[in-house]
């Protein structure tokens, strides 16, 4: 990992391991480098080690092994309060005995910034999160969204270049969460700060981030921009974790011209793009996004393999139709079609042929 890219990296994890109990590794061999100004999201199921990584970066946990560097300086031995990292906690951690303004001026006071300067900065930070009138309130007198914004303002008010956010929107309802996602992204872009953001909401990760690190089992499964992550998952965990996904299991029969012919467990044949498979005979799990499935066979390439599917259920969802099919013996195959004037509405019981472009169907590892 020691190459030119890493020297420019602002935050860097190198071969970091972490164990709490000396028996199991919560973080296994983490390598991560992010440049200044990047908005990186750590996404992963509960218990996958996201918070642990964040805490190591903030200095509240020490890495069992490996180096964490900030701006090229190893910070393993720098105490948390000297790291200058802004942090938004999962439950906001606004000090209940201080007013909003006092909360915000706390980091400035401990930095011995003069009173008038302090007031100016607090005011600016409050205005930035559109909470200018709330300086005199106590945190308990604010709604969840307002508290969240204050927590954000507090993490930004001392002009930290790196801000860590641990599921800051976890406690908010959907509408407010979407509003705040937009807000956070806007502020982060305006200030040009580097953000490490933790969530287990994949939509949030996809909409906000420059890059997403998908965590599972203490490892980064894939680190990529959102579109790549969605369209080109590198393994079946990522494929299943990000977005909706249909999977079919089978064995590779042959690979020709970058297209793998996969024989499903019931004997049907399909085309797929080989990702984690290299030779015939390997077991694979193929993954195909519901919106990439075609049942209008005219749009498919000549000679493509198709599968028989029986319509189980048709769900009208407004902007899209969602149809559940029984394919290759499994009845959880979903296809999504746009609600357009000429769109066909399939009826339960109907039998159709479905197919797809070979590059939309990814043959991944079998587990």
């Amino acid at each position, binding site marked *: 990992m020691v190459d030119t890219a890493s020297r420019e990296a602002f935050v860097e994890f190198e071969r970091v391991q972490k164990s709490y109990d000396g028996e199991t590794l919560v973080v296994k061999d983490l390598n991560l480098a992010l440049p200044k100004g990047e908005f990186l999201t750590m996404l992963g199921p509960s218990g996958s080690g996201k918070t642990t990584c964040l805490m190591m970066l*903030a200095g509240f946990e020490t890495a069992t092994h490996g180096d964490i560097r900030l701006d090229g300086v190893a910070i393993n031995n720098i105490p948390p309060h*000297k790291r200058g990292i802004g942090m938004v906690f999962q439950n906001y*951690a606004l000090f209940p005995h201080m007013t909003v303004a006092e909360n915000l001026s706390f*980091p400035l006071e*401990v930095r011995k910034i003069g009173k008038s300067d302090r007031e100016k900065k607090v005011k600016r930070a409050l205005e930035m999160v559109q909470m200018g009138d709330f300086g005199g309130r106590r945190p308990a007198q604010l709604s969840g969204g307002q508290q969240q914004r204050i927590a954000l303002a507090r993490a930004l008010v001392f002009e930290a270049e790196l801000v860590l956010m641990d599921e800051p929107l976890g406690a908010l309802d959907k509408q*407010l969460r979407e509003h705040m996602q937009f807000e956070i992204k806007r502020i982060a872009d305006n200030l040009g700060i580097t953000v490490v953001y933790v969530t287990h909401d994949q939509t949030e990760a996809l909409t906000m981030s420059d890059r997403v690190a998908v965590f599972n089992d203490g490892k980064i499964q894939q680190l990529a921009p959102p579109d790549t992550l969605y369209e080109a998952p590198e393994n079946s965990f990522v494929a299943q974790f990000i977005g909706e996904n249909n999977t079919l299991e089978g064995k590779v029969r042959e690979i020709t011209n970058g297209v793998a012919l996969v024989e499903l467990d019931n004997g049907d044949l399909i085309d797929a793009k080989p990702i984690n498979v290299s030779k015939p005979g390997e077991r694979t799990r193929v993954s195909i996004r519901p919106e990439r499935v075609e049942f209008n066979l005219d749009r498919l390439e000549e000679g493509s393999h198709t599968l028989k599917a029986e319509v189980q259920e048709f769900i009208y969802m407004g902007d899209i139709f969602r149809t559940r099919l029984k394919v290759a013996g499994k009845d959880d195959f979903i296809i999504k079609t746009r609600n357009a004037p000429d769109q066909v509405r399939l009826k339960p019981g109907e039998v159709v042929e479905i197919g797809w472009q070979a590059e939309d169907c990814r043959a991944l590892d079998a587990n």
Partner: protein
Amino acid sequence: MSASFTPFVLTFDNKNNGDDMSNASEAPTPDDGLNLTDNENTGPVLAADGTPLKRSLGRALRRQKLRALMLIAPLLIFVLLTFIAPIADMLFRSVENQIVSETLPRTVVALDDWDSTTGELPSEAVYEAAYYDIFIAAERKLHTRLGSRLNYELTGASSLFRKSGRGLDDLGEVYQDQFEDLNEAWEDGETWALLMGSGDWQDKAYAWEKSSGDLAPKLELREGIEELLPKTAAAYSSFANFVRVDDGDNPATEDPWSPVYTAFWQDLTGGATVASYSGPEAELLMEAANAAGGFESTTFSEGFAGIDKDWASTPIWQTIKTYSPKYTSGYFLNSVDMQKTPDGPELRDANERIYGILFKRTMFMSMVITISCIMLGYPVAWILANLPARTANLLMILVLLPFWTSLLVRTSAWKVMLQQQGVINDVLVWLGLVGDGDRLVMINNQFGTIVAMTHILLPFMILPLYSVMQTIPPTYLRAAKSLGATNWTAFWRVYFPQSVPGIGAGSILVFILSIGYYITPEIVGGTTGTFISNRIAYHISSSLNWGLAAALGTILLAVVMILYWAYDKIVGIDNVKLG
């Protein structure tokens, strides 16, 4: 423990949060659009059966309240009987003073006209009233009680009254002897009954049998005798009543006591028109009336002076007059080192003042104990709150261990530890830090009391602190550090303020408990380390001056309530959390 334990109820609610939320929607906020408000207002709302909703809600709630009341009734009754009632009784006793006016009713009335400030002795009428009052009190054995009551105010009153009880009998016997010498018939109870009582009453009285279990018939005076011999009638009535009620005997057959003779002599020499009397024993009466003028006699004041010269000086009379009202502020004045004088309340002489010092010492030492408890308890509670639950529970047992050991054992253990030949001194001497000759005095003084009581009350500080600290999430400290605060700043600015409610609760508990503590200061306090409660206990069990004890207790209660009120004003009582 029971003497020192103050039952104590803390209420805590979080109403603040709720109230203040209501105005959170005044200013427009970006998410205002998300809040749906329903401000429609249409008349009183009706319940399903047509009654106003408010009323049917009230009815439903009343039933709930009633049921709740029934659940707490046993405790309520218990508290009423064992707590509220004794306190009310104590408050009453601290001002109650009926003993003087009940024991000396005539004297109190007679003293009304006496001006105690002139320095003159009271009039003969006062002495006369006192003669009858004290004599009757002595017969009832009440004079010593009154003596000890007045002794609180005037030293020597107790022995004066004890002496007078005997002496006044001699005073009357002078007349008794002379009448009896004149005619033996006066020795006889029946003669008196015949003379004083109505015929009806005599018939009933002679028919009465002691074994019947009823009281003897109540004296009915002979018609006209009251006008003829008013004082004799009064004295004989008192006598008859005493014999009848207190002794359970028949007044008609008992020989009268000496004041009857005194009164009789007074009446006869006071110009009674004996000639007009025509009832039984008229001759006997005539004979006595003729002889009485030549009897040997003294005035009452001389008689009193003869018993004790204190009666011939003003202080005892001033004291009786000052304490004759039914209610008195005397106990309270006493409790603050003042006394009642004819010129109003005055501070006592400097060498007689003790309660002010004791109150101040109690406050001061309780404060020191509270502060020591905070100093020692805070770190312990911190560690307990930040340890994993299993270890914390184990250590909690160590904190609670003192609770499971007898208070006496713990206090005595401190005696063993701290005394001059005790463990600590031995160790210090052995280490050579202290010479064998000048071992430290650590017990039977304030230091001993503070050490022992800090140890005993420590759990009362640790427990509320611990439960408050447990509710402070560690993320606050982390947040503070991530914002750039050093460990100390993070603790002091963020953690400590949030633990203040625990300190508040612990301090209130410890302070109030220690202010009323009694056993430990008694054992290890010596003379300089005792509390006001030790004085209260002394007055309750040794000097039997319950009024003063009650007044001291009332002041203590008032001080606690004032402190509690002040605490509420300064810190806010809803900032007190026990968990």
